């Protein structure tokens, strides 16, 4: 084999490898989305935020439909009756004391919903590939699990973070860690998955994770699912403004 043929072979193999790697990144993300998306779901959970002022705990009930629609109702004493509805790509808040529905737009979505979680953090949905260009950038062991490391660059203006790096288990396609970056490249938040459980038909579900704010030292929010019901029968009216009152 002369040098010219050898060079063509190397280039061809490299192109095939790069292509395969790129497809794999998309495939991994698609599978990860599929695993975490249910026709319907009901859960009860706890959110615990820790910062320099101490610890705060909230409990909630949540209903979701597909990859986009959800309704969250807080059940702890301080916030009892407060609801957050996401439907038709719009986010609404309901405060029982005011008996008023507040649509959330623009900069308002940046406000904290709970601790380090902003409203925009919960509006991303799971159709990741519609909103990001993904690229496989390597492998890494996260908490003993071999993971793909995938860089996601936003292609849509509907997402809050222009860049994310996600680490997804090679065996189970479950997200193990995520890093959120600002436009300037500065790391904003890190999500660590603490616990993954198997439910019903053997599907894996993240039941505990911690989101740590990298700009505010010592500030983190732990989200824990205490009760989970997959594919329960839900009334369509649940995901409407009427259900907020």
């Amino acid at each position, binding site marked *: 084999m002369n040098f010219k043929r050898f060079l063509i072979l190397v280039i061809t193999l490299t192109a095939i490898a790069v292509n395969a790697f790129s497809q794999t990144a998309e495939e991994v993300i698609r599978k990860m989305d599929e695993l975490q998306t249910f026709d319907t779901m009901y859960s009860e959970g706890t959110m615990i935020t820790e910062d*320099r002022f101490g610890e705060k705990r909230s409990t909630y009930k949540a209903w979701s439909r597909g990859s986009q629609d959800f309704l969250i109702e807080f059940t702890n004493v301080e916030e009892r009756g407060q609801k957050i509805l996401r439907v038709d790509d719009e986010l609404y808040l309901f405060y029982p004391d005011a008996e008023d529905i507040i649509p959330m*737009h*623009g*900069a*308002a979505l*940046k406000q904290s919903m709970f601790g380090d979680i902003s409203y925009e953090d919960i509006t991303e949905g799971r159709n990741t590939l519609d909103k990001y260009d993904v690229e496989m950038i390597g492998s890494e062991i996260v908490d003993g699990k071999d993971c793909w490391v995938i860089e996601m660059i*936003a292609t849509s*203006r*509907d*997402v*809050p*973070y*222009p860049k994310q790096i996600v680490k997804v288990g090679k065996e189970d396609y479950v997200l193990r860690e995520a890093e*959120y*970056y*600002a*436009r*300037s490249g*500065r790391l*904003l938040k890190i999500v660590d998955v603490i616990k993954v459980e198997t439910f019903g038909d053997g599907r894996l579900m993240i039941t505990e994770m911690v989101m740590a704010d990298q*700009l*505010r*030292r*010592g500030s983190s929010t732990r989200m824990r699912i205490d009760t989970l019901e997959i594919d329960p029968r839900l009334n369509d009216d649940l995901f409407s403004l009427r259900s907020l009152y």
Partner: protein
Amino acid sequence: MTFLPKMAFKNLARYKKRTMITAGAIAYGLMMFIVIRSLLTGIDNESETNLRLYETATGRIMAQGYWDDRETFPLEKSFDPEIVTPILENTGAGYSPRISFGGDLIFYKDPFPEDGSIPGRFTAIDPVLDADVFKLRESLSEGSWLVDGEQGLILGHWLAEDIGAGIGHTVLVETQTKDGYAQVFDLEIVGIVNCPNPEITRSGMFLPLSVADEFLEMDGTVTEVNVNFGTLNGADADFAALVPDVEAMGLEALDWRILGADFIAISQAKAGSSGMIIFLILIIAGVGISNTMLMAVYERVRELGMMRALGMRNRQIRAMFLWESAGIGLLGGFYGVGLGALVTWPLVKWGIDYTFLLREASFGYRIQGQMYGVWDIPSMIIAFFMGVGMAVLVAAFSTHRILRLDIPASLRFQ
């Protein structure tokens, strides 16, 4: 002809204590009226000036719909300032493009006293053009002014004190780009402003326009162009003349009264409170005078009966009492205006230090630290005539009651 006034004067002198107490009540009410009017007018004038010099200018040009959504800092409602500069230059007005955006100021222990973050409004300004419109640069109390292209930040004096900020300290700004992406960038505190407008001192955060343009990815667009025609009388008319041309470009132009609507609302409420003060003064004066006049009349029922028996007519007696009350009103008026002027003088010269009150809470007024009074001469004249008029009016009612008794009943009155 002078009999009745002389007699009224003698009566006033005869009942010195009563006269002085009644005149004192009137004087106190009038003094309060003059002082409060002086302070409120002073605050109003200074607030209006500070609003225009540090916040609103004569008016502001914005993209259509920006003002309605201003609470959410809609960066997408921005425009190229170059499209309005030709007409602004033709009018000779000063103009200053700015970008207003919301975000969090994040700071860390060492050099700051502790970690923290505060949400707020950031204003990106053209370091050169801004001086043609606002007096911010003249209020720099520490450090240096912003330099185009350098990542500097100027903070309000109270804000800097609250977070323990000093010159050279570095902070982070967490915000969103025009496209809505999360953005974080560093700024170094280069200056601190301490201006007479408490809104700026309490929460002002200013950075160079070019820095905001780069990090917010504004592509040369701005959220507002502030226009300055000065603070003289013709300024509003000059700005109003500009509005049709601006609207023809698909933009909107709002004058300082709309931009400073919170202050205008306070100012209008003040007009209402002034009315309430006048009403209270009328009550104080009315109750005091009517009480004194009733006492005077009832003490002298038999004396009046005798005067009427000797041939003095009701009209003359009524006139005598009106002269008496007018005398009390005059005394109260003079005292009141004199005292009012006496208290107003230090208010005009030195003012009252309200820093402790204004620092903690915003009342809508744009004054900081010292509240100064003004010499409100029309209010003093009004106060004087109000005192005399009230005294005469109330006396007329009191006298009327006693004159309804017949002469024998008056002579037997105990």
